[in-house]
């Protein structure tokens, strides 16, 4: 049988397997590259920032001298921003997801909304800043306030919440919904008492991931005019404010390298806050998902 020339195949085999294992090494190196960069980044930031991370750093306001600089105004600003953005974006995002998954008919308009959300998720964040500047700051005359910033941020993260909530709602088994209808429950009763409780872990995970995106976002807030040198804590939603990323940006863009170390300290605080938020998301997911 001469279909396969075994000698020829054997002759090429060694180089083919060698190539396979060589390239496999390259692929592995590429995979590890990201992890190595992450390790360097975290190591650099911690070693740079550790010197400024003390109690004063959390209780002091911005200062012209690096050793007195603190992040208090920025931490409170970020919390205030979340307090505005979270409820608005949750109502809009989860509401939109429930509509699309459970109420909307499969027609052109529904497809339009769906496509629109996919495209909104791809719009650069700075463009949302321009929208906020025109609509919230100028047209609705909110000024450069926490309210304007929070509303801008919620528009930015709504698409993320919609997509995550839709996935969570879609995953709820049809059987328990049918069972609820079978017991005579109306549509809204079924959604409120059966579908939503089952989908809550997925929705909360999506919400927290979206909010952590908002905590780290800088550009749109610079555009709507959040302040960069703030020595007060916001008192209400009409106050001016700064947030952690803007404070870090302000320190980073100063020429004195001492301020770069202060910026590193600020980044450590920001990353710890994000880590906390994400751990809460994981905890909630684990705690609730046991029930179903």
């Amino acid at each position, binding site marked *: 049988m001469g279909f396969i020339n075994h000698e020829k195949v054997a002759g090429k085999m060694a180089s083919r397997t060698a190539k396979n294992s060589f390239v496999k090494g390259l692929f592995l190196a590429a995979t590890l590259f990201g992890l190595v960069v992450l390790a360097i*980044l975290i190591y650099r930031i911690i070693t740079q920032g550790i010197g400024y991370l003390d109690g004063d750093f959390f209780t002091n306001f911005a200062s012209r001298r690096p050793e007195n600089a603190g992040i208090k105004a920025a931490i409170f600003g970020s919390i205030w921003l979340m307090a505005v953005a979270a409820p608005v974006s949750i109502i809009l995002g989860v509401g939109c997801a429930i509509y699309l998954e459970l109420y909307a008919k499969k027609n052109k308009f529904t497809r339009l909304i769906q496509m629109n959300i996919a495209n909104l998720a*791809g719009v650069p964040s700075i*463009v949302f800043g*321009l929208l906020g500047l025109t609509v919230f700051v100028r047209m609705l005359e909110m000024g450069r306030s926490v309210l304007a910033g929070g509303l801008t941020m919620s528009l930015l993260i709504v698409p993320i919440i919609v997509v995550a909530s839709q996935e969570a709602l879609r995953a709820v088994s049809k059987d328990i919904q049918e069972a609820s209808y079978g017991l005579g429950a109306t549509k809204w009763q079924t959604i409120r008492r059966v579908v939503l409780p089952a989908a809550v872990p997925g929705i909360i995970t999506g919400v927290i991931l979206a909010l952590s995106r908002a905590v780290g976002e800088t550009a749109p807030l610079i555009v709507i005019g959040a302040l960069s040198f703030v020595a007060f804590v916001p008192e209400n939603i009409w106050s001016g404010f700064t947030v952690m990323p803007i404070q870090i940006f302000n320190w980073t863009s100063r020429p004195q390298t001492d301020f770069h170390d202060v*910026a590193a300290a600020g980044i450590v605080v920001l990353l710890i806050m994000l880590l906390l938020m994400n751990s809460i998301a994981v905890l909630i997911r684990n705690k609730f998902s046991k029930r179903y």
Partner: protein
Amino acid sequence: MQKDKVSIAKLIEDNKKKNRYKQGLIEKAVPIFLFITALISILTTIGIVFTLLFETVTFFDRVKILDFITSKEWFPFFEQDPKFGIAPLISGTLLIALIAMLVAIPIGLAAAIYLSEYASDNVRRVVKPILEVLAGIPTIVYGFFALTFVTPLLQKIIPGLSFFNALSPGIVIGIMIIPMIASLSEDAMSAVPRAMREGALALGSTKLEVSLKVVLPAALSGIIASFVLGISRAIGETMIVTIAGGSSPNLTFNPTEAVQTMTAYIVQVSLGDASFGSTIYYSIYAVGMTLFVFTLIMNLIAQFISKRFREEY
């Protein structure tokens, strides 16, 4: 006997009657409320388009649209005779996006192939969440990293490198995009049926040959779509280029020089005190409009590719 029996049917009927008005109201009101929340997402898009459009039209009342497109100089801050030619901002944006993709495509794709074709389940379970952490780090942190670590490192390798340059933010944006390309491409490759791999392996292919000649072509639409989305992210990225790229609008494709991107210009104006109603104020909307059109086209291309060229098995 019949009289004493409680009629379940009647109970339900009574109960329904009692709550019918309230219940009916809720059942009618809730869909309307939810529909309004869905409408707001459409209104957001309309708001973005109209905001950009109106302010851009005002800008073009003062600056000729032909100058904006054809002029090669961008000097908006000149007191006399400011120049508004978008070309240097576009070249700066594209240069940085190009560098980013040169970093992100090979590394991201290689990582995707490793995770999808070579890695064991255990390795995948550990590596994927760490890559997601990389994707979740705020861009301001990457900007700081570019300025204080990558730029000094590059200056040691390339002696003539200026402090602000296109190379450093380009590389760092590339690193930021790696997880996105790796994860989207891996999804596309994982969707290729196992039978195709087994078939190729049974014919005597090595794993590399299976990956490159069977899996990669089958998943190509998803992979290319991930590249296009990556480019779109790189074009819209703001803080990294603002911090490490500088603010010199140069019409150059030399990566060692300082440049300015469209996003960095918007930040520069926002930080300064351009008064409301000045030409500079309106110019950020014209630049934002250009940026929006660029990224919208990229996103639509990505959606088109992944729908139109998807191979179904």
